[in-house]
């Protein structure tokens, strides 16, 4: 039994033309038993950036609160919102602080920077950042997600097309994973607004 597989969950983020999208399933399980179908794994860090946290649920919640604290303090001190790239390094430093008693979560960050340029990245549980231009995946369905994204993603997708692409990537990946699924949520971030949609999925 691995701590990263105990509760189950999958997250994916993609970059499009002047937009990014981040999506997650909604399952919370205790090994084989599903306990909740609306467990939040994506948290809003600033107006234009989100952090997705798959992994052990207790660490998902603890880290989301910790990052809320850190981003709030940053905003009060610096009198501006944190940029996605800076947020990524802050998350990485936080995880590495626990290098030998690590948090069981492998975050995904997606957002638009101050010039509305798309930014996505993922990292491992001790904070090694993977800066990607196309897509990043994390969670129990990560292998299937890699396959789906690699096939479906193409550059410069408009927000509506990016939504379809990321949704299909997530759905078809979690459908092959018994520990992820039971509902999904997708956030599409554009310079003007954030659109959140809940997907109708197989509930098994």
């Amino acid at each position: 039994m691995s701590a990263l597989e105990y509760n189950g969950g999958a997250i994916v983020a993609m970059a499009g033309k002047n937009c990014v999208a981040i999506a997650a399933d909604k399952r919370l399980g205790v090994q084989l038993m599903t306990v909740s179908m609306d467990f939040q794994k994506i948290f809003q860090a600033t107006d234009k950036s989100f952090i997705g946290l798959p992994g052990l649920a207790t660490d998902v919640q603890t880290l989301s609160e910790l990052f809320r604290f850190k981003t709030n303090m940053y905003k009060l001190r610096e009198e501006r919102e944190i940029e996605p790239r800076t947020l990524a390094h802050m998350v990485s430093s936080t995880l590495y602080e626990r290098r030998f008693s690590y948090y069981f979560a492998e975050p995904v960050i997606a957002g638009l920077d101050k010039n509305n340029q798309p930014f996505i990245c993922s990292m491992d549980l001790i904070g090694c950042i993977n800066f990607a231009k196309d897509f990043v995946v994390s969670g129990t369905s990560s292998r299937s997600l890699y396959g789906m994204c690699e096939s479906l993603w193409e550059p410069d997708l408009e927000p509506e097309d990016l939504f379809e692409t990321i949704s299909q990537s997530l759905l078809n990946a979690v459908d092959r994973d018994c520990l992820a699924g039971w509902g999904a949520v997708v956030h599409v971030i554009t310079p003007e607004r954030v659109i959140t949609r809940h997907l109708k999925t197989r509930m098994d």
Partner: protein
Amino acid sequence: MSDRYSFSLTTFSPTGKLVQIEYALNAVAQGVTSIGIKATNGVVIATEKKTASPLIDDSSLEKVANVCPNIGIVYSGMGPDFRVLLSRARKAAQKYKRVYNEYPPTNILVKEVASVMQEFTQRGGVRPFGVSLLIAGYDDNTGPALYQVDPSGSYWAWKASAIGKNMVNAKTFLEKRYNEEMELEDAVHTSILTLKEGFEGQMTENSIEIGIIGG
């Protein structure tokens, strides 16, 4: 033995002053003049490099110092106290970079340094720093910035300022010469002129130090 020194030197006087800070400001007022000018595309800081003897190797003396690539610092007052604060400022900048992978914006670094100086007006067993600092920096969000930090730990931003012996005359001179559209080249020129006003002795390229942020 140690509990004899646990009280603070900066205890309030009946008038509500902290006399140690007043005296620290006197130490600053005796120090060599330093200038800072903010331009549209950068900041200039400058100071006299006044050595006690012509035998001193003045190339080894660094009064205008680098804190990190986007922030510079100069002082008026006691050199050794400045070195301590410089060391703290540099360490604070690197600590910030370790977390965020970028150097701190000027106002954040200034808050850190000011916080150290304030601590030394309240903690037991220490005395305030005998320096005023001019911290100049440039960051992408706020552009060029110039701050003064005093021994009390209070800080504020300037468009142009002077500290040290000749500060009153220098500030009067700057009030006439400064304008908001000033560019870096003009600011450098003006800072040299301002230093020249109160200069004791010969001003050569070895007897002044200039720091330029931006450009």
